[in-house]
Every structure is written in C-alpha cells, then in structure tokens.
C-alpha cells in the first residue's frame, strides 16, 4: 500500500488497457473529488468507456494503479468497486423490465425484518421508505410501483442512481447519460446531479456535448487516443479550448452550404394512421411529402409519435393510409421489400435495431446485401467478396476497427454509428430515414455524418430526419414538420429563421 499526496476520492495513475492490437488506454490519469462533477470528454474511440470499465472493476488494467482514498486497490469485479463506494450508471440500463421500480431498487440488497437467508421475507415498507427518502433528497419524483418497462428512460436512470446511493456509493460514473434523453429530461437529470454534488458525491460524467460540460461540470479532463491530455477546472477554460484539445486542432468545419431546390416529389405519405400496440403512440392522419434533393426534418418533444412514424415507414409497424415512393405503393410491402425499393433506415436504437451486437463487424456492415451478387454467388456466400465489400464500406466512412471479424460490440459507440451509415448508404437508396443519426457521436463524427446526409441529398436523395437536437434539424433541414401527440401540427419553411415558431408548435401543438 502506497499513499498519495491527495488522498481523498478515486484516483487513477497511468492506466493502460490493451485489446488485441488496440491500445484502448495508453496512459490515463484522473482524480475525482467529493462534491465535484468531473467531465470526461474525447473523440469516439478515445478510450473513455474503457477507462470507466477499469475504474468500475468490469475489466482489469494491464498497467497503472487505482487508489481509493489514497489506498491502492485492485478491483476484480464490479462488486469490488461497489464495496469501495464506486458505482456506474450504464448506457444500457441495468434494469429488469418486468419488475417494479421498487423491486429493481432493492434487488441484491433487500431489507428484511427477520433474516432467514434467501427465504427471508422482504420488508417492502422499509424498502419504500428508504427509496423515497433518497429520492426526496436528490429531488426525484418516482412512482415505485410502476413496472420498469413502462417508466421513461430518465426515471430508470434515476432509479439506478438511487440504487447506487442506497448501496453506499460516493463516486458515481455516468457514461453518456444524456445521449438517450430528451432535452427536458436532461434538465431534470442535471438538477439531480447538482443536488448530488451538494451532498458530497463525486461524479464522473462522460459527454460529447461541450455545452453540457460547460453548464454542469466543475472540472474537465480531455482524452485523446488513450491518453489524458488536458485537465482544468471548467471555470478557467473556454468551450473552444476544450474542443481544440479534443481534436488536437483538427476540427472539421462543414460549410453551411446553400441547399439546392428540391426536385420532383419522391416519397409521399397520405393520411397515415396507426393504432396503439403495446402502449405505442397512435398516429392520426399524417400526410407529408419529400422531394428528391430535400431533407425534411421532424421536430417534436420525445415520445410524440416520432418513433412510430419511422416504424410505419420502414414497415416495422402496421398502418393504414398510402405511402408511395416514386409512385409505387409501399404500404403492403415488408421491410426487406421496402429496402429493395430504395428505403434506407438509420435506427435510433442502435444496439437493438441498428446492429446485431454479437455478430462481427463485417457481417453487420454487409447485412442486407447478403442476398445479392457478388456476396451471394448462386445462393452461396462468397466470403472473399464479402470481406472486400465490408472493408470498402468501412473505409469509405473511416470506421476505426481492429479486425473485421471482431464482434461489433468492441467498436466504440460513435464508430458503431458510422458503421450503420456505411451499410445503409452503400446500396444507393433513394430515401434515407435517419432517426437520431448523431446520438453518441463526437464533434468530427457529427460533421462527417452531416456531410454524408448533405451529400446524399445533393445526389438527389430524399431524407427524413428525426432528431432531438434542434440545432441539427435546423442546420440540415430544408423544411421542418412538427409532430405533437401523434399528428403533424404544421410544416415550417426556412426553419433557421422560424425557430421560436417551431418551439411553440412542439409544446402547444396546432394551437401555436
């Protein structure tokens, strides 16, 4: 055991982690302090998530040291870290969907009146009191009897945080907690994190959004290519400075070019209706058209039917009404037939719909083209051709990977998203339906994806863009349609100059 000069909190010195030929963490040093929010930023694949996995005991470092309150520790599993007061809120929430929120809260450490080992009766009133006390303390409103599957994402996040607090966590790690949240939910989360800070919890917070960092954090550490390259208190640096450190001076700017005049109508949606299935939103009477060379943005408060609309268009959800592409009716076609007619789809749910996480990188990037020549050769899979096409596609979008046969789950979040794009635009579709296309993507990645979408448009494609980032919608869209409560309440031309109107329509529906 070796003591260090600044003993309080969690501290890492010179951490290293190597996966095969990839050095994910080269030399990472970071320290947390009680009552302080420490933001960790860096490009996709820089090694942020890897560092957090080391700090949380999910994986063991290949070099370097971790200290808790000045004492050297060696975590072999997350339980070890938890015992030292370190817990992580996962990107993929660790919540059992069929259990109630209260059951999720106490799982693993249930309060009992009399202990009979595993057969003890759980003391539900005590559990509820404990949970409610913590929720009150951090200012969260939680309906403990709700089934987790029915609770909104930010509430699940809150339950995870309360669970960790209840188990004595003093250092909380949050890996891109805002990526899956709607703007209002982000505000709620931040309020809660600020309360936690006041109460003396140390927070490590990963984000790609500099705005969030500036608004929330006390300290910031920048990671580049597996190394911590910059550390400062947020008060003493500017957003530009942080951005420059992230990309090492190579920030790509996308020229905000003049959009071409949309040509003929390509995709047309006429009075589309959808029933509610499994608590999904109903859609009423949606009519939209998108011309070739046009990007139509869909703005709306999360959960107002955006996802359902997208699913109806790609054929994942039954609907009535008429959807035509180039005059051909799509309504009766299944997803694969729609694809063949030229519909491409970037799903907002990358981990479940966009990718098959266990399958290899190359399988994922050629999926959908596996029935066509040259990958399919007389019904047989031509491995060599498949590999070559996979390589080309990955290279075209500059996806960073180790070996094409590795599972796609080994890619960093942002590179996974680029892979989905690489696959979807490779078959030269006519319509691109992109839902939250830059979620979890770093600054340069966003620039690259925005450029891709514009190139697609300039090539005569039609884009339906759904995003919770209003900035993104306005920067890209030719027109913005606003969805509220399952119906389109209006369409705005020249969105950049009509921002307040869009905001009002999102909140007030057609009344605005």
């Amino acid at each position: 055991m070796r003591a260090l000069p600044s003993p309080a909190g969690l501290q890492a010195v010179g951490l290293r982690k190597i996966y095969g030929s990839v050095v994910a963490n080269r030399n990472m040093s970071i320290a947390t302090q009680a009552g302080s929010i420490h933001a960790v930023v860096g490009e996709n694949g820089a090694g942020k998530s890897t560092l957090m996995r080391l700090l949380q005991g999910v994986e063991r470092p290949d070099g370097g040291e971790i200290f808790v309150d000045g004492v050297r520790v060696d975590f072999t599993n997350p339980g070890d870290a938890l015992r030292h007061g370190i817990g992580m809120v996962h990107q993929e929430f660790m919540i059992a969907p069929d259990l109630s929120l209260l059951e999720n809260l106490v799982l693993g450490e249930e309060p009992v009146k009399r202990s009979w080992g595993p057969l003890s009766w759980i003391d539900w009133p005590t559990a509820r009191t404990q949970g409610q006390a913590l929720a009150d303390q951090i200012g969260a409103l939680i309906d403990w009897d709700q089934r987790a599957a029915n609770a909104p994402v930010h509430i699940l996040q809150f339950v995870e945080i309360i669970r960790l607090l209840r188990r004595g966590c003093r250092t909380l790690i949050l890996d891109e907690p805002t990526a899956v949240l709607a703007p209002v939910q982000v505000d709620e989360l931040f309020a809660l994190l600020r309360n936690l800070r006041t109460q003396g919890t140390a927070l490590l917070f990963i984000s790609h959004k500099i705005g969030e960092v500036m608004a929330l954090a006390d300290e910031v550490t920048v990671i580049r290519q597996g190394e911590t390259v910059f550390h400062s208190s947020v008060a003493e640096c500017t957003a530009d400075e942080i951005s420059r450190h992230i990309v090492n001076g190579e920030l790509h700017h996308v020229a905000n070019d003049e959009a071409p005049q949309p040509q003929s109508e390509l995709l047309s949606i006429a009075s589309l209706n959808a029933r509610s299935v499994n608590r999904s939103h109903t859609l009423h009477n949606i009519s939209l058209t998108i011309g070739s060379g046009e990007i139509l943005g869909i703005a709306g408060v999360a959960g107002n039917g955006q996802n359902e609309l997208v699913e109806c268009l790609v054929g994942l959800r039954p609907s009535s009404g008429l959807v035509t592409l180039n005059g051909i009716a799509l309504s009766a076609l299944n997803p694969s037939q729609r694809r063949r007619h030229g519909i491409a789809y970037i799903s907002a749910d990358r981990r479940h719909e966009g990718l098959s996480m266990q399958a290899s990188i190359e399988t994922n990037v050629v999926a959908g083209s596996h029935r066509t020549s040259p990958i399919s050769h007389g019904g047989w899979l031509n491995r060599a051709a498949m590999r070559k096409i996979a390589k080309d596609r990955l290279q075209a979008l500059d996806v960073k990977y180790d070996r094409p046969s590795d599972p796609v789950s080994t890619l960093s979040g942002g590179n996974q998203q680029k892979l989905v794009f690489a696959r979807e635009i490779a078959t030269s579709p006519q319509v691109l339906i992109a839902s939250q296309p830059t979620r979890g993507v770093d600054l340069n990645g966003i620039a690259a994806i925005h450029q891709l979408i514009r190139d697609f448009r300039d090539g005569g494609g039609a884009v339906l863009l759904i995003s919770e980032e209003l900035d993104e919608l306005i920067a890209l869209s030719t027109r913005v349609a606003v969805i509220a409560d399952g119906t389109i309440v209006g369409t705005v031309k020249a969105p950049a100059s009509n921002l307040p109107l869009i905001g009002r329509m999102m909140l007030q529906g057609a009344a605005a």
Partner: protein
Amino acid sequence: MQFEHLIASAIMLTTPILLAAMGGLINRRAGIVNIGLEAKMLAGAFVAVIVSSATGSWIIASLAAALAGAAIGWLFSLSITRAGANMIVAGLGLNILVAGVLGFILSWVYRSSGTLRLPDVALLPKILPSGLEFVPLVGPALAMLDPLTLLAWMTTGALPFVLASTRIGLWIRATGNASEMARSVGLQHLTIQDFTTACAGFFSGLAGAHLALVSLGLFNEGLTSGRGFIALAAFYFGRDRPITTAFACMLFGALEAAQIRLQLEGLPPKLIGTLPYVMVLIALVVVSIQAQRKSST
C-alpha cells in the same frame, strides 16, 4: 355417485401434473424452459418403487424420488448454465437418456422388460380418517386424499407469496427477466438458475413418486406418458402464474379422468387416449391467440 368418483379421480390425476408444473414454473421464472420434466418424473417413479419396496416407507421413498429428481435436475442445469448447452436440445437429450438408462437397468438388473414389480411396496396412505365417503360431491375425493396431493396444493398456495415477497423469489424473477442485470447487482445468476432447475427436478421426482405409489405400486416404462409435457403446457397456459397454472393442471387432470371413463364406456381407447393431448394443443393455441389480441389493443 358417478360424478363424485369422477371428481376424485380428476383430483388424483391432477397431482403429478401440478407438482411437475410448479417445479417447471419456478424454473421458467428463472429463465430456463425445462423440457426434461418428463425424465425426472420417470426417474422419480422408478426410485420411489425401489426405495418403497426396500424400506417399506412411503416417506423415505418419496423423499428419495425427489432427491433423485433434484440431482438429475442439477446436473442437467450445469450442462446448460456452465457448459453452455442449448436448453431445448439438452432437455430432449435428457428425456431420451433417462428412458434409455432406466430400460437398461430394468432388463439388466431386474431381468424385466418394461415393468418393475417388487414385493412389499408401501403405497401412499390416505390422510383423512375413514367415513368421509358419504360427504356429498367431494366425499370420495376426501377419502382418497394422499399426502403428496396435499403438498402439491400447499405448494401452489404458497408459491405466489414466495415469488412475490421473499428474497429468493425476487432473485428468481430478476434472473429470468434480466440475467446480466442480476449479475451486475451481485447476484449469482447461474447458481440461482441451477437451484431452480434442481427445484423442478425435486417436484418432478415427487410427481413420479405419486404416479408410482398412489395406487399401483409398480413402475412401468410408459408410466408418465407425456405428463411432463402436459405440465409444461400447463404453465405456458397459466403464463407462469401459480394459480392460473393450477387451474390448467386441473383441466388436464379432469380430461384425463374423463378419458378413462370414456374408455370404460367402450369408445376406441387409442382415439380417446389422445383427448388430453389434443386439448393441450387447443388450449395453447387459444392462449397464444389471446395473448396476441391483448398486445394489440
């Protein structure tokens, strides 16, 4: 009179299905679909007959049958949770393996093909004092009530509370629902699964003991005749809820009793014998149609 006897035999025929179904239900709640219930039932019946004959005690015999079932269940579980076997394939394999091994032991040790008759087999006792036969409607059923039937129904009554409110119950539900998550909060999800498979074996073993010791006192290769699968259908039908599952078991038990009655009436026995299985099929179709309807409103 006729009807009262029908009720009595329906209840008696429900017991083994109910026992196996409760075991399988616990197992499925923890995420394992156990199609090897049949094998454990058969092994339980075999062990019960041998132990009962050797000791003359139905208690020891039932316990031995349960433990044999639990042991087989545990090994079966290890092959799934630790060796990564597919649960359906492993379950099918187990059914074939156990039937084969028992047949082999029968012919090799007992020089018999198919049936094992041993002397002095102690049958399950009747637990209520005699004289209840004349209670209207349920008289014969009460008179025939045996300890394993009582146990089966007590288990059914207790299980909802155990699952809802004990630590192990919560662990089981969490494991079946999100095993990675259970692991992340520090539960040993594989051990929990093994435990529930052992439970399934335990109750299936008891089911076998009931089949063998309730009236016949002998073992026959065809003794279980698919009841393990009917139990499986029962907890699918009951959507893994103990009480609804018990209703399904009673339905199947009653069908079996009716079927036996109809055979006695002189209808073609093979055809009538398919009745419970046909009903199982129909029941499953009805349930899944209902489930689909429900999810689309």
